[in-house]
C-alpha cells in the first residue's frame, strides 16, 4: 500500500500532466500556480513596504508605487486568494472526502485550470505592458480615464472569473451527485460544506464581476457612459456592481479556510467537532447573508442613508455565524487530546488573528466609526488580519496537514515551527501597528505621508522582512521534503477522515477496489475510559 504506483508516477511525461483529468494532478498544478502568484504578489508587497520606509520618495516614483499596490492587490485577490484553497486543496480532497473517483466533470476541471492560466497571462501582460494603476477595485471614472494598461488586467479578471465559476459549478454538482453510498448530507466533513457554500457564491456572484469588468471595458473603448459621470453615468453604480461580487468574494476567500480549520482542529484534538450541524448551517448562512452586505464599502460614497442603514444592520448579522464558528472551534479543544504539531499552531494563530480581524470588523461595521476609519490604514490592517491572518494561515495549516497525503513525504517539524514563529511575529508587526496608524488618520494608498507617521511605518516595514523570511523558510523545507523527505505513512496524524484511509500519495482512482460505504459521521474519534 505504501509503495508502488500512485497518481504521481502512474503516467509519465509532461503531456500526462498538461492533459490530465485527474483531480489530484489538477489540484497540484493549481497549488503550484497559486503559490507562484503568492510569491509574485508578496514581492510587490515587499517593494511597497520598502518604499514606505521614508515619508517621501525612496526609490519608486509615485506612479510606480501606485502600480505596485494595484498589482499587489489584483494578483493577491484574483490570482492567489480566490482560487487558493478551493482550487488546490479543494480539488485534491473534495472527491476523496466524498468517496468519489473524481469530480463530476473532470475535463471541465482541466479547462478551468487552463482558463486560469490564460487569465494569469493577461494579468502578466498588463504588468509588462504599462502596469495598471487603478487599485484592484478599478473605481470609475479613474479607471476609465487613466492611460495605463487597464484593459489587459480586467480582461484577465474576466477570464479568471470564468475559471472560478466553472470550478464552482463542478464542485456543486460533485457534492450533489458523486457522494459515496451511505454518505448523507450531515455525514459530510465540514471542509466539504464550506467548499459547497463557497461554490454557491462563486456561481452566483462571479458573473456579476464578469459583466462589470466587461462594461468597464466598453466604457474605456467605446464610452457607453454607464459609469462615467462626464457621460451622464453614475460612478456609485460601478461600486454597487463591483462589490456585489467582491464582498461575497471575501467569503469565497474565508469560507474554505474555515473548512480547513475545522478539519485540522478535529484531527489534532481527536475530537468530534463541537456543534457540527450548527457549523454546517452557519456556513450556508454566511454564504447567503454575504450577498446582502456589499454596501458597507459604500458608507461614505454617497449612497442613500436608508441603504446605508440596512447594510450596516446586515453587516452586523453576518458577524454572528463567524463568531459561532470561533466559539465552536475553541469548544472542540475542550477535553480533547491536543497535539501541538505545526498545522495546529497555524490553527491557533488563525483563531487569534481572525478574532482580531473580526472585532475590528465590528468597529468598521458601525456607521459613525466607519466614517472616520474608511480608506485609512485601519481598513488595510483589518482585511489583512482576515485575509492573511485568516485565509493564509488556514491555507498554511491545510498545506502542512495534507502535505504528507499529497506528496507522500514528511517535512521537518522543527523547521516548520521556526518558520511559524517568523510568520506569526512578522505578520503582527506588519499589520497591528497599521490599526493605530489608521485610526490616527493615515489614509491608505499614500505614496508620501506626513513625517510624523514614520515610526509606525518603519515598524511595519521591518515586520514585512521578518514575514518574508518566514515564507522563504517554508518554501525551503517544502522543497527539501519533496527531494529528500521521509516516506509518509498513510495516516501520520491518526485522523479518522476519509482521505487518511487511503494510500499516501493516493492511487489514480483514489479507492483501489469498490467505492467505500460510509456509515458514520465525519469525525469519528474514540472516547477515553475515564
Amino acid at each position: 500500500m505504501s509503495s508502488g504506483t500512485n497518481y504521481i508516477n502512474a503516467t509519465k511525461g509532461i503531456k500526462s500532466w498538461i492533459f490530465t483529468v485527474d483531480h489530484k494532478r489538477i489540484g497540484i498544478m493549481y497549488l503550484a500556480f497559486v503559490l507562484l502568484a503568492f510569491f509574485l504578489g508578496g514581492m510587490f508587497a515587499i517593494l511597497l513596504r520598502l518604499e514606505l520606509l521614508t515619508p517621501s520618495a525612496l526609490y519608486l516614483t509615485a506612479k510606480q508605487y501606485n502600480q505596485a499596490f494595484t498589482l499587489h492587490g489584483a494578483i493577491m485577490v484574483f490570482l492567489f486568494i480566490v482560487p487558493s484553497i478551493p482550487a488546490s486543496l479543494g480539488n485534491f480532497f473534495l472527491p476523496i472526502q466524498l468517496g468519489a473517483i473524481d469530480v463530476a466533470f473532470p475535463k471541465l476541471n482541466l479547462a478551468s485550470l487552463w482558463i486560469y492560466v490564460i487569465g494569469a497571462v493577461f494579468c502578466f501582460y498588463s504588468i509588462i505592458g504599462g502596469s495598471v494603476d487603478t487599485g484592484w477595485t478599478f473605481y470609475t471614472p479613474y479607471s476609465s480615464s487613466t492611460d495605463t494598461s487597464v484593459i489587459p488586467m480586467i480582461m484577465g479578471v474576466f477570464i479568471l472569473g470564468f475559471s472560478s465559476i466553472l470550478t464552482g459549478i463542478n464542485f456543486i454538482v460533485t457534492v450533489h451527485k458523486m457522494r459515496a453510498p451511505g454518505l448523507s448530507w450531515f455525514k459530510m466533513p465540514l471542509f466539504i460544506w464550506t467548499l459547497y457554500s463557497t461554490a454557491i457564491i462563486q456561481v452566483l456572484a462571479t458573473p456579476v464581476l464578469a459583466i462589470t469588468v466587461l462594461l468597464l471595458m466598453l466604457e474605456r473603448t467605446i464610452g457607453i457612459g454607464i459609469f462615467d459621470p462626464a457621460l451622464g453615468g453614475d460612478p456609485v453604480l460601478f461600486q454597487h456592481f463591483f462589490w456585489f461580487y467582491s464582498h461575497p468574494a471575501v467569503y469565497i476567500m474565508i469560507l474554505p479556510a474555515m473548512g480547513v480549520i475545522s478539519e485540522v482542529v478535529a484531527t489534532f484534538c481527536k475530537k468530534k467537532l463541537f456543534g457540527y450541524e450548527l457549523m454546517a448551517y452557519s456556513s450556508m448562512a454566511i454564504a447567503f447573508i454575504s450577498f446582502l452586505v456589499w454596501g458597507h464599502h459604500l458608507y461614505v460614497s454617497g449612497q442613500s442613508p436608508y441603504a446605508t442603514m440596512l447594510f450596516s444592520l446586515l453587516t452586523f448579522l453576518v458577524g454572528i455565524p463567524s463568531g459561532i464558528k470561533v466559539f465552536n472551534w475553541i469548544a472542540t479543544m475542550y477535553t480533547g487530546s491536543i497535539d501541538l504539531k505545526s498545522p495546529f499552531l497555524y490553527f491557533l494563530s488563525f483563531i487569534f488573528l481572525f478574532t482580531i480581524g473580526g472585532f475590528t470588523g465590528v468597529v468598521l461595521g458601525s456607521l459613525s466609526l466607519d466614517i472616520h476609519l474608511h480608506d485609512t490604514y485601519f481598513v488595510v490592517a483589518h482585511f489583512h488580519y482576515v485575509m492573511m491572518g485568516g485565509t493564509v494561515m488556514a491555507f498554511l495549516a491545510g498545506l502542512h496537514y495534507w502535505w504528507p497525503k499529497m506528496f507522500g513525504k514528511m517535512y521537518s517539524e522543527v523547521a516548520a515551527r521556526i518558520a511559524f514563529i517568523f510568520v506569526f511575529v512578522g505578520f503582527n508587526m506588519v499589520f497591528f501597528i497599521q490599526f493605530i496608524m489608521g485610526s490616527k488618520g493615515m489614509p491608505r494608498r499614500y505614496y508620501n505621508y506626513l513625517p510624523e507617521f514614520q515610526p509606525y511605518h518603519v515598524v511595519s516595514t521591518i515586520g514585512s522582512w521578518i514575514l518574508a523570511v518566514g515564507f522563504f523558510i517554508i518554501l525551503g523545507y517544502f522543497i527539501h521534503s519533496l527531494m529528500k523527505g521521509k516516506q509518509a505513512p498513510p495516516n501520520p496524524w491518526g485522523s479518522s477522515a476519509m482521505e487518511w484511509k487511503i494510500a499516501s500519495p493516493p492511487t489514480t482512482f483514489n479507492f483501489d477496489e469498490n467505492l467505500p460505504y460510509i456509515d458514520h459521521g465525519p469525525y469519528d474519534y474514540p472516547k477515553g475510559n475515564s
Partner: protein
Amino acid sequence: MSDKHEHFVIPLKYYVFTLIALLILTVVTVAVAQVDLGWLNIYIAMFVAMIKAAFVIFFFMGVRWDESFNKIALFGCLLFVLIFFVIVIADVSTRGGVYSSESEMFDIQSPVRPIGEGGHHGDSSHHGESDSYKSSSSSH
C-alpha cells in the same frame, strides 16, 4: 438498473400549447404597447413577459418534471437577482441625489438629471430623513 435509464418524454400537447400561448402573448404585448397607459405600460409588459418566461421555463425547459434541486437552483438564483435589483434601486431612488436647490444656488450645469424630476420616483414620495439632506439653508 434499466428502469433508471427511462427518461420522461414530455407529451406533445404541452409543446404545441406553449407555442400557441407564446405567440398570442407576443401579439398581446405588442398591441398593449400601442396604447398609452402611462406608468401602467411597463408593468403590463413585464407581467406578460413573466408569463411567457414561465411558459418557456416550465414546459420547453421541462422544469415542471425536473428534479427538485434543479428547481431550487433556478428559483433560488432569481431570489439573488431580486436582492441585487431591489437594493440597488432602493439606494438610487432614495439617495436624495443631486440637491436641486444647491445646483440652482451655485448655477452648476449637470448632465445628470436629479432622480425624482419626473419619472416614477415622485419627489413627494419620500419624506423624513432624506429631506433634511436637501438644502434647507437660509443663509443665501
